[in-house]
């Protein structure tokens, strides 16, 4: 604004300079005649008398006069600030410059291109006027209308809790859970978003924390860590939307994602032990199953083998039995040391030395 008034003043100075070419102030006009009587004869007449008083060097050319006047107006120092503005050709350039500047100013501050994802909220002297849809919107120039472009499509994310520091919450069964989650939201009503809440972003964050806490306080630890996550996310989003609508925040919650729901680090080992126990129990069962399968097969095999032999035995019982007996005895006695004692009462002839000797000798071979 200060800048603007500065330009205004400068422009006014230039326009009053414009009288220069005619060599006289518009004395005939009523505005100038208040303090001094009109001293000039007409628009093309002599230079004003006053000029002669202040510059005693006699009649001045129109250029000198102009310079002098310029000095007067801009503080009067010889060769001072007047040099830039007092001279006519420069003056007209500056006029064009000012006109150009104003045109550009009007152009840039009254034509707004609104991107497809944006809405332009127009305020006229601070009062809400209307909202510009995407495309080119035309408003009054800047000090009057101001346009705030608000991105309504962009989905913003707030991440609460993280892997590094714990966000602990109490569950319904008074256990503690470390939770990290993300809220995605965008703006539905840009004017509500702009005007209704003092700190909309901070509000959304606080509402998210509050809603998550309320929902977690209504589920068990097991539920929060496992199968109820989807339900928690939906309920937090719903709760947040309800609260934010109540605040008239103009915000839509697109979704809540629980990124992490773990037991706190202090008790993590105990939770791992539960997992280990589950694995262990499963391995017990697996081993038992293997045993069961093995035993069953073996029983089946033994029974079948017996059945086969028995079927043959049935055909000629005596012979088969003897045959089996001799065959077995052959095999058994083939590989063992044998001592046959002829008569009863000759125990002292037992080759005990040899027996004792043979045992330690054979032992290492085992």
């Amino acid at each position, binding site marked *: 604004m200060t800048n603007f008034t500065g330009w205004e003043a400068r422009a006014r100075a230039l326009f009053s300079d414009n009288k220069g070419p005619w060599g006289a102030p518009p004395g005939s006009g009523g505005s100038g*005649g208040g303090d001094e009587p009109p001293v000039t004869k007409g628009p093309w007449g002599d230079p004003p008398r006053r000029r002669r008083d202040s510059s005693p060097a006699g009649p001045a050319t129109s250029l000198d006069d102009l310079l002098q006047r310029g000095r007067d107006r801009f503080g009067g120092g010889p060769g001072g600030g007047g040099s830039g503005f007092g001279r006519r050709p420069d003056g007209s350039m500056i006029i064009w410059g000012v006109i150009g500047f104003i045109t550009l100013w009007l152009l840039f501050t009254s034509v707004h291109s609104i991107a497809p994802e944006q809405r332009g909220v127009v305020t006229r002297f601070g009062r809400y006027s209307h909202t510009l849809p995407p495309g080119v919107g035309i408003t009054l120039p800047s000090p009057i209308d101001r346009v705030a472009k608000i991105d309504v499509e962009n989905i913003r994310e707030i991440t609460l809790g993280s892997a590094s520091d714990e966000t602990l919450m109490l569950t319904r069964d008074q256990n503690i859970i470390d939770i990290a989650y993300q809220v995605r939201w965008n703006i539905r009503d840009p004017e509500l978003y702009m005007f209704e809440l003092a700190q909309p972003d901070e509000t959304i964050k606080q*509402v998210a*924390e509050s809603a998550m*806490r309320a929902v977690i306080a209504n589920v068990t630890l097991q539920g929060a860590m496992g199968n109820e996550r989807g339900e928690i996310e939906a309920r937090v989003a719903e709760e947040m939307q309800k609260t934010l609508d109540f605040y008239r925040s103009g915000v839509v919650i697109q979704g809540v994602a629980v990124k992490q729901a773990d037991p706190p680090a202090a008790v993590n080992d105990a939770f791992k032990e*539960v997992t280990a126990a589950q694995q262990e*129990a*499963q391995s017990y*069962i697996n081993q038992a199953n293997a045993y069961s399968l093995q035993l069953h097969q073996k029983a089946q095999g033994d*029974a079948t083998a017996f059945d086969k032999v028995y079927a043959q035995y049935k055909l000629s019982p005596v012979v088969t039995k003897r045959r089996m007996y001799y065959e077995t005895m052959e095999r*058994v006695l083939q590989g063992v040391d044998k001592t046959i004692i002829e008569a009863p009462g000759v125990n002292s002839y037992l080759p005990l030395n040899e027996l004792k000797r043979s045992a330690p000798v054979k032992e290492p071979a085992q």
Partner: protein
Amino acid sequence: MTAFIRAHPFLSGFIGFFLLVTLFSSFAIVPETRQGIVVRFGKPVRIINRYTPGQPFGAPGAGIAWRIPFAEDFVWIDKRVRDIDMEKQQVLSTDQLRLEVDAFARYRIVDPLRMYIAAHSEDRVELALKPILGSQLRNELGKRPFASLLSPEREGAMENIRAGLSRVARQYGVEIVDVRIKKADLPDGTPLQSAYARMVTARQQEARSIRAEGAKRAQIIRAEADADAARVYAEAFGKDPKFYDFYRAMQSYQTTFLGDAENKSSPTTVILSPSNDYLREFTGR
């Protein structure tokens, strides 16, 4: 006038500057987000853009506001919903358990004049309301057992706190929109540690019971397998117990003296009597 400017450049410059300042100080732009009070020599005379519930944006009120320069002053007050963020409070439940509660309240200044007279600025309103919010919270939650502190919304505690705070806030021209609990944690130290200990022991208990359950099921599976095998054997061998006895004895001798596929038997010395059945034919009788 031009002549006057020429005669007194400094004076006219000063007058121009003065007029400009006067002009600019006689009006102000009131945005939608603010309400204002015009104060004439310290005495509030009128309210600009006062909050009216349900009023849409763009209503007259915001826009340009005028005042008498130098005599009147604008005091700006936020029109939006603002936030009081309370410090953590320890709440003691009826069953003597402690909970650390972090709450916030949303408020809006609905009577700027009263607020200006009572507190002068938003910050001082917040400063005044914070301890009241804390004490309301402690009083209301202190009436409840710990279990219901975790979700106080269910029992209308938050509504009571809001109502209690509203009674005080009204003196400041403030309306409490909402009170919410942001965090409800166990205080650091003993309460937190004992909660952890409880969680750990609960997990250990769970782990043990899972192991025992697994062992039990394994045992049942083995027993069933044994029973099944016994049934299969009985079915087969029951056909001729005497032959089974002989058959099994033969298998047993072989395994005992020769070993089976897995382990070799230890070296054996057999002392036989000629009267042994196997050596019956030895005597040549």
